[in-house]
């Protein structure tokens, strides 16, 4: 059963990410991205990470994609559709990407990792995933957590400063 679900999610994720990169209309890119994020959330559920699956749906599909939709309203789609979507030297980039793929594909074949940590499937099932992850964040990773909150604050202020019109004096 797990193989079936993994196969479906993997095929859908690869097909949808190809659609994101090759679609001509930017709106089609964003909508394929939305379905892609939902499939990645499904993959997280397969990996026993329910809290991350929910965060994926709320933050990525709910917040970040809405930002992208607002950004698409800025650009003139009618004119955009008449233009070329790839830059002139795209074969070089595709060759570089395929070279990276073959190199890492061969490398990943030999990866074996011993299990035996604390967070086994049974542990997560008894403690529940959000509590286990919360303990990890608020006990061991409290300083990075605070730093991330400052990064978000700086990003909000920076976005306002960058996007606001210059006032005439």
């Amino acid at each position, binding site marked *: 059963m797990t193989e079936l679900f993994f196969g479906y999610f993997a095929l859908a994720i690869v097909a949808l990410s190809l659609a994101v990169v090759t679609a001509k209309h930017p709106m089609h890119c964003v909508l394929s991205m939305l379905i892609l994020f939902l499939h990645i959330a499904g993959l997280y559920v397969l990996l026993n990470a329910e809290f991350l699956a929910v965060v994926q749906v709320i933050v990525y599909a709910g917040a970040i994609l809405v930002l992208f939709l607002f950004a698409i309203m800025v650009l003139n789609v009618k004119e955009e559709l008449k233009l070329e979507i790839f830059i002139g030297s795209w074969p070089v980039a595709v060759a570089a990407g395929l070279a990276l793929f073959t190199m890492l594909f061969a490398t990943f074949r030999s990866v074996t990792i011993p299990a035996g940590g604390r967070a086994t499937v049974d542990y997560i099932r008894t403690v529940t995933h959000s509590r286990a992850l919360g303990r990890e964040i608020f006990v061991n990773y409290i300083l990075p957590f605070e730093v991330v909150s400052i990064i978000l604050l700086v990003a909000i202020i920076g976005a306002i400063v*960058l996007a606001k019109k210059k006032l005439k004096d």
Partner: protein
Amino acid sequence: MVGLNAYMWLSLAVFTIGMIGFLTRRNIIVIFMSIELMLNAVNINLVALSHFIEDLNGQVLAFFVIAVAAAEAAIGLAILIALSRTKAGCHVDEATEMKG
């Protein structure tokens, strides 16, 4: 049972597609989406490794990656709005103002 290598190959495929999109597209919005694609590929890898090692540190890192991706999207789209006021618009090969 699906092994670790299958997840790593899936994340590698998504990462490569995102990288090719980042290097080839002209529209800045789609380039940002390719960056999100690459970050998601890394997240799949982190969560899969954390599941197979049976250690939650990887999932905490994926959580922070999601937070930083949100910040990055906000800043990037603000830059896009600032850039769309110039004559370059949102195409990377037309924004050549800083060329020496």
